[in-house]
């Protein structure tokens, strides 16, 4: 779990995000989900901590075929 995130704030963040997504999480499933979310949130920090400039292209930038099928 990120150092500045307490279990309570982690849960609050998660509830906000899933509410935004329009999903109602059954309360009986919440405890295990929060365990998974804590682990996942730590992984997300690995992404968020990396600075890239505007030249970093995404993997799914695509290429349209030219007229007549030429490359």
């Amino acid at each position, binding site marked *: 779990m990120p150092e500045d995130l307490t279990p309570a704030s982690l849960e609050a*963040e*998660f509830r906000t*995000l*899933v509410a*935004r*997504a*329009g*999903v*109602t*999480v*059954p309360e009986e*499933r919440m405890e*295990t*989900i929060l*365990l*998974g*979310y804590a*682990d*996942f*949130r*730590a*992984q*997300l920090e*690995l*992404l*968020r901590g*990396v600075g*890239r400039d505007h030249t*970093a*292209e*995404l*993997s*799914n930038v695509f290429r349209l075929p030219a007229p007549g099928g030429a490359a």
Partner: protein
Amino acid sequence: MSEISIAEAGRQLRAGTTTSAALTEAALARIAAVDPKVNAFITVTAERARADAARADAELAAGTDRGPLHGVPYAIKDIYDTAGIRSTCHSKLRVNNVPTTDSVAAAKLAASGGVLLGKLGTHEFALGGPSFDLPFPPARNPWNTDHIPGGSSSGSGAAIAAGITRLAMGSDTGGSIRGPAAYCGTVGLKPTYGRVSRRGVFPLSTTLDHIGPLTRSVEDTAIALQILAGHDPVDPGSADVPVGDYLGDLEKGVAGLRIGIPRAFFATAPVSSPEVIAAIDRVADALRGAGAVVEDVTLPSYAAFSTCGRVIMLCEAFAIHESDMRARPLDFGQLTFERFILGAAVTGPDIFKALQLRRELTDAVQGVLQGYDALLTASSLVPAPRFDETPRAMLASAPMQTMPFNVTGHPALSVPTGLSASGLPMGLQVVGRPFDEATVLRVGRAVEVLSGWEKVALPTV
């Protein structure tokens, strides 16, 4: 039947020393005997199998030969559409779903003259499992039924290890072919992204999804890939790249090949079995002895691949299931819901950064493969755990090492390396250049020979 390779079955069928009907009856009898213990099948299509077999025998008698799978039994994971046969995704949400058309892969296997035995168990929607709250029980590992067979192509791995069939189709989004292959002691191929059409296979995460075979041997896999490979203009991920010859180089050995080992992937993992690592090192030594250059290489950290893949997978999976997650949350199994819901927590900037990272990781693997014909690494860091040892949450520290090549799309083959002291299979991955499955299979065949796995008998179930 399962002791006879697909190629040998073909020779016997053409020599008239066996019939497809006989092979099919043997497979159906094996299902009746062992499937109550391993739960590999959701639906057994005995009537269809007998009809397929009768047609195959009649065609061969009349001089019509559809190729190496003609008359040979196979089975398909239950996320593949099969016309007129229910395709449930192992889920209450699709328990009554009966497609009207075949998936492209199912159609190709049928057109090749194979005999469809039935539909195989999976983790729900290829992610949620092993679970006991679904309409069908989870598959069990034939080497020890207290242990999981891996997932999500759990029924596929179990069906082969139980000696029911030599060919079972699976799907692989983060390791769902290679994981069960490693845990069940089978061969499992995730082809290059775009090599095999996914049309008609229920998606988990479309940019990471691959489909491919689990088989008893590398040769069986090569035969299956020869049938399955090819461009499908209707599958947006399908690549218009010529299909190779997957059988021609199988026995050429590894002399002169350069093989890299990204050792940090498994040497720095928080959980790993010394036996699994020792088996990889033994194979590496044997490959050197057979004339390959084998040396350690450096790739970005495993955590980078794992993070990238998990974020993309959960985000895409949630998007696919969003409507049902909102309207019918309790119709998902608990594990499935617990995993899919994490995708709702991915923000736009998170997915943007994951896609930036994906390009960097793909370029890094491509860069290393400019100097090597193949990479060798672990499939799973441990032999199959017991059901009661399997964590509920899907954690970053999971012992699979398969996600990197879903992220990058490179072909990857899991091949057994031997049995652990506890009698459970261990495996490794051979990874190759895009669309160079022929070299991956060639190295895999060498591993199969050098490890001695081809002489290991199936377990008694």
